[in-house]
């Protein structure tokens, strides 16, 4: 019996335990994605005889004798299915990794089901959009413009749809592992079952003899070097404390042994055949315990001077301040002091980590899911002693990252094996490995102490943080540094910050949206509300009185900082949120006296560039056919930078976006780019593209003037033509002339940097109701105002904000990695981790405030905004809960079991 896929019969026999997902991918239907691999996310959705199934939990044998349709089979030739067209135009995606599944689910729904998306979109998860875009796509709302309908030079400020859009909705856009490279072998790892242990003996004999196994690697086979997995421009801002494979396991889930075999099944069997004799060591699971005398020192003896106190598990401490806080507190009429805690949460990007490495013509090629091919190349080159010229690292489209791919995790072992075996080596993380062997958000404990005069004037601010970097220090230092930001946006003479980043035997923490600033914002913005309440001052007035203003010094310490307010939209953001919350949106609180209603808001400020350097080089080329090509190193992971780059270049060159092609994310083709993190895809890479386009324009004008006479200022470049000295010729002609007659290529490149640093603003407001008996929270209204400077693409920015806010809602209400006493992650899968579903997603009123933009900062005065929208969400919700109930929750997530415990008894006593 055969299986028909999109009208073609395949007689391949599925393996007896195989699911339909891998069967279809093996046949080359890469539109069928893996998100969760257990029936929760829907990325793998296909139709069998017209009904929708999650192909990851459907036995492949069930399709024998039936007709399977994948997203690739939906369109009728060039004609898109109406739902594909709708997803293209809404657009219903950011990274696009969920899109094929969303489309296949939608097309299988009845009209009735489409009216009830809360239920019918169960089993269809999107981590990027926050679901409004999905809603619009399913309902046929078109928020974009055809790029050729945008007049030449009008690109900035328009909302063209993503250039990759068609590939995404048809399932043809390639992601990292969407390829079957001839001869590929597979890598799997044995992970440590202990949180802290030493491998006394590793017996690989059985594994090596296991069928199909080609190689087994242990700590004895990897480079004898320490490195850090963290991706930063400057590797000296992170400790060297990690080996590709180590003899010591420092967290449960650490890779100990790698097995490479012809198939995944054989690699897994090889892993099961590895025997390890362990010496189990004492372990420590909280930052508080890790700094106690006598705690096991996790990196004792590490010689890297970066590690502040290896014998006490202190990776880094920071003690910064100015003025005299003691005197400031003396002066205060009211002092507020409290402790706040934030949990460990995961990125849950839908595409798991994955890498394919192979050697070809003396070059090691690494196709991988990373936020920075260039820094990855630097690290990999260092580890394996490979020259830059002989190491190519590149991405295809990345299926979401959020900071989770700002570490080099899946790449090193693939290179090790590819070099050894001379075969392409692929390693795809399972979803469970994402949770147990990926990276997570740093848990923080934050003490805040604030002093103020009766009139609300702040007299002293003090913050004391203790944060958990997990088993390795990768992002610990930078995250700690970033946590200072929450003291930045209040004016106060006396400030004091003391922070410690501490090693534990937990899964390593990493970079995550709201890098180091989401946690302290949760603390500071609640503390400020609490202080206002103690003073009897309206919390918004308190902010207006104390927030920094242009001209203020943003430094917490006494160092001069280049970080300055170059444009300032905070007052407008506050006004908007205040007004909208006052107006309401007509959604009433649920009925019943047990429901208490409240409002809350919070501020978040984001520096437009990280304090460590971030740089990017871009070039723009006029091709001989008269079109333009942009080369820029940044990566597209759903943040939409590629589209905004085209918009900016088209505006500078006074043409339309369809005149451009773009080559990005490849160390062999692009100039250096630090990477797509810290919202730098727009701010720095976009600046490089804009500068290169500006340079090219000047070049074209200069050349045309020289060639045809006249002054360069009078040369007009527009659409596909150039007018000079009374005559008009096509750009193609000009390019050919330059090449043929003068041996010139009309192209220009320029580098850009994060400097100077400006600030963007987010203000989040929420109205909600709390059920004092059950502990439920019902979000009634959500308002989010931002100062993003110039808005390059309104549709896209709105999507970034909604997505960021939704991740904030998840962090606030439902998500957290629960841990057992021995360090085990208890919910290492999408189902139990509980990220927001469509039904959990409130509508968000997103507003961009008008500000006098400062062009000296970002391109066209734009400020990057991908990360920071998450920051004020949790404190705004906590403030609203306190407003509603009078009870403060200083930890997350705010789940019903936590809330009812605090509220129910008091409520019953007064109403029972």
């Amino acid at each position: 019996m055969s299986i028909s896929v999109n009208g073609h019969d395949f007689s391949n026999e599925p393996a007896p335990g195989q699911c339909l997902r891998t069967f279809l991918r093996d046949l080359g239907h890469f539109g069928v994605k893996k998100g969760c691999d257990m029936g929760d996310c829907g990325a793998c959705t296909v139709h069998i005889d017209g009904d929708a199934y999650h192909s990851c939990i459907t036995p492949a044998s069930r399709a024998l004798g039936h007709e399977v349709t994948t997203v690739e089979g939906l369109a009728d030739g060039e004609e898109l299915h109406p739902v594909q067209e709708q997803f293209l135009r809404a657009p219903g995606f950011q990274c696009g990794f969920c899109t094929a599944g969303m489309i296949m689910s939608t097309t299988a729904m009845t009209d009735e089901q489409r009216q009830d998306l809360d239920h019918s979109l169960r089993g269809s998860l999107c981590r990027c959009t926050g679901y409004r875009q999905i809603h619009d796509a399913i309902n046929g709302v078109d928020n974009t413009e055809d790029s050729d309908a945008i007049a030449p030079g009008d690109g900035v400020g328009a909302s063209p749809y993503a250039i990759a859009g068609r590939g995404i909705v048809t399932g043809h856009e390639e992601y990292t592992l969407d390829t079957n490279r001839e001869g590929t072998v597979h890598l799997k790892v044995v992970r440590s079952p202990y949180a802290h242990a030493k491998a006394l003996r590793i017996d690989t004999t059985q594994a090596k003899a296991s069928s199909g196994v080609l190689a087994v690697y242990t700590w004895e086979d990897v480079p004898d070097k320490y490195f850090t997995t963290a991706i930063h421009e400057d590797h000296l801002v992170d400790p060297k404390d990690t080996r590709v494979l180590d003899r010591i396991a420092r967290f449960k889930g650490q890779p100990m042994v790698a097995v490479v075999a012809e198939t995944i099944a054989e690699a897994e069997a090889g892993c099961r055949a590895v025997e390890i004799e362990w010496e189990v060591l004492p372990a420590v699971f909280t930052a508080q315990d890790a700094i106690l005398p006598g705690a096991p020192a996790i990196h004792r003896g590490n010689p890297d001077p970066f590690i502040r106190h290896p014998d006490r598990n202190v990776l880094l401490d920071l003690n910064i301040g100015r003025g005299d806080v003691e005197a400031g507190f003396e002066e205060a009429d009211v002092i507020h002091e409290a402790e706040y805690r934030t949990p460990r949460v995961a990125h849950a990007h839908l595409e798991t980590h994955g890498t394919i490495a192979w050697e070809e013509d003396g070059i090691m090629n690494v196709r991988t899911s990373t936020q920075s091919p260039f820094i990855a190349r630097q690290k990999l080159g260092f580890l394996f002693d490979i020259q830059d010229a002989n190491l190519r690292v590149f991405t295809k489209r990345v299926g979401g990252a959020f900071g989770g791919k700002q570490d080099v995790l899946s790449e090193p072992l693939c290179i090790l094996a590819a070099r050894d075996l001379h075969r392409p080596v692929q390693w795809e993380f399972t979803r469970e490995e994402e949770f147990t062997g990926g990276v997570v958000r740093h848990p923080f404990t934050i003490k805040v102490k604030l002093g103020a005069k009766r009139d609300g004037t702040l007299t002293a601010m003090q913050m004391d943080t203790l944060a958990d970097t997990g088993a390795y220090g990768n992002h610990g230092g930078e995250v700690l540094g970033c946590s200072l930001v929450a003291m930045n946006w209040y004016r106060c003479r006396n400030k004091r910050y003391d922070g410690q980043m501490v090693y534990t035997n937990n899964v390593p923490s990493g970079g995550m949206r709201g890098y180091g600033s989401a946690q302290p914002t949760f603390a500071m913005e609640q503390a400020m509300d609490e202080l206002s309440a103690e003073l009897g001052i309206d919390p918004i007035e308190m902010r207006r009185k104390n927030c920094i203003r242009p001209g203020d010094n943003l430094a917490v310490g006494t160092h001069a900082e280049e970080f300055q307010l170059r444009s300032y939209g905070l007052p407008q953001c506050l006004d908007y949120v205040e007004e909208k919350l006052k107006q309401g949106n007509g959604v009433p609180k649920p009925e019943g006296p047990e429901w208490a209603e409240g409002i809350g808001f919070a501020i978040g400020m984001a520096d437009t560039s990280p304090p460590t350097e971030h740089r990017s080089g871009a070039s723009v080329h006029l091709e001989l056919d008269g079109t333009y090509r942009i080369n820029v190193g940044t990566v597209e992971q759903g943040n939409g930078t590629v589209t905004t780059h085209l918009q900016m270049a088209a505006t500078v060159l006074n043409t339309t976006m369809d005149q451009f092609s773009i080559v990005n994310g490849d160390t062999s083709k692009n100039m250096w780019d630090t990477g797509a993190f810290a919202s730098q895809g727009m701010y720095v890479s976009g600046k490089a593209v804009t500068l290169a386009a500006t340079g090219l324009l000047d070049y074209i004008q200069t050349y045309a003037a020289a060639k045809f006479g006249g002054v360069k200022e009078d040369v007009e470049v527009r659409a596909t033509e150039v007018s000079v000295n009374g005559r008009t010729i096509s750009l193609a002609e000009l390019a050919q002339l330059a090449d043929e007659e003068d041996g010139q290529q009309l192209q220009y490149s320029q580098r850009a940097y994060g400097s100077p640093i400006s600030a963007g603003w987010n203000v989040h407001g929420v109205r909600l109701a709390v059920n004092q008996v059950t502990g439920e929270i019902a979000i009634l209204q959500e308002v989010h105002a931002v100062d993003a400077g110039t808005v390059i693409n309104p549709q896209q920015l709105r999507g970034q904000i909604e997505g960021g806010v939704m991740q904030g809602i998840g962090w606030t209400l439902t998500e957290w990695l629960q841990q057992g006493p021995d360090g085990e992650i208890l919910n290492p899968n999408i189902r139990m981790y509980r990220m927001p579903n469509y039904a959990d997603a409130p509508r968000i009123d997103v507003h961009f405030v008008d500000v006098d933009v400062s062009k000296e900062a970002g391109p066209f005065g734009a400020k990057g905004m991908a990360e920071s929208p998450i920051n004020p969400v949790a404190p705004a919700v906590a403030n609203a809960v306190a407003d509603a109930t009078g009870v403060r929750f200083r930890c997350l997530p705010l789940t019903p079991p936590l809330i009812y415990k605090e509220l129910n008894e008091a409520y019953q006593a007064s109403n029972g």
Partner: protein
Amino acid sequence: MDQNTVVELVKPDPAAPGEGWREGDVWLAGGTFLLSLPLPQIRRFRDLSELGWTPVEVNDAGLEIAATCKVSELMAYQPDPGWAAGPLLHDCVRAFLASFKVWNGQTVGGNICTSIPAGPMTTMACALDADYLLISPDGSERTVPAIDFVTGNNVNILRPGELMRKLTISAAALNRRYALRRFSLTKAGRSSVFLVGTRDPESGEFLLTVSAATIHPFHIRDAGVPSAAALLDMLAEIPDDKYFDDPNGRPDHRKHMTDLFAEEIRSELAN
């Protein structure tokens, strides 16, 4: 996900499906549970998809649902509108966290045999006082009340190789009025607490099924609708350590919600 340790897909003989059962065998129904987590101990799938059992059958005794009835088939089945408890069948399907796409694959018996506390087919069967027919590998049969089947989280009374054939619900049970309450930590999420109360129109008997909150379902049965205080006393007999602790709920909250919902159901059915 792939179960790479599975070496054979056995198509059992419908006349003697359990014949030749050996260690490492499992029944494969929809596979929506069996392909959703690593299970390296499995060697053979015994495929139930071609046994040809009629999904839903109405007869004098009441309603018979085959173990292999797909959840989507149960959802498509329209119960006799005369049965007051008929709509409960669909209410319980909607109580799945699983999407309509999972319903197309998963089976009623597969859900009951997975035996997790939040299993809505277990709730349905217990609330309707169903009986299960089980067949052992040698062909002998036994009938057990639904309430006795699940004994813990992912634990039940099935013996090695034993197969669930069908569940039977009496017409009398289907004639009872019912009320339900469900709670989950996210909006369309997995049940943290799922309670169903029924009341016999003639005898007035009251039956409360407590599920999802506890590691296995509990019945509270009384000749009539009890007083609020009496109900609380009966609920207090559920030992504290039977309240389930997992990422979808905490035992104390589950107990709190159980008491709360039980009272709401009691007063709804008292009228």
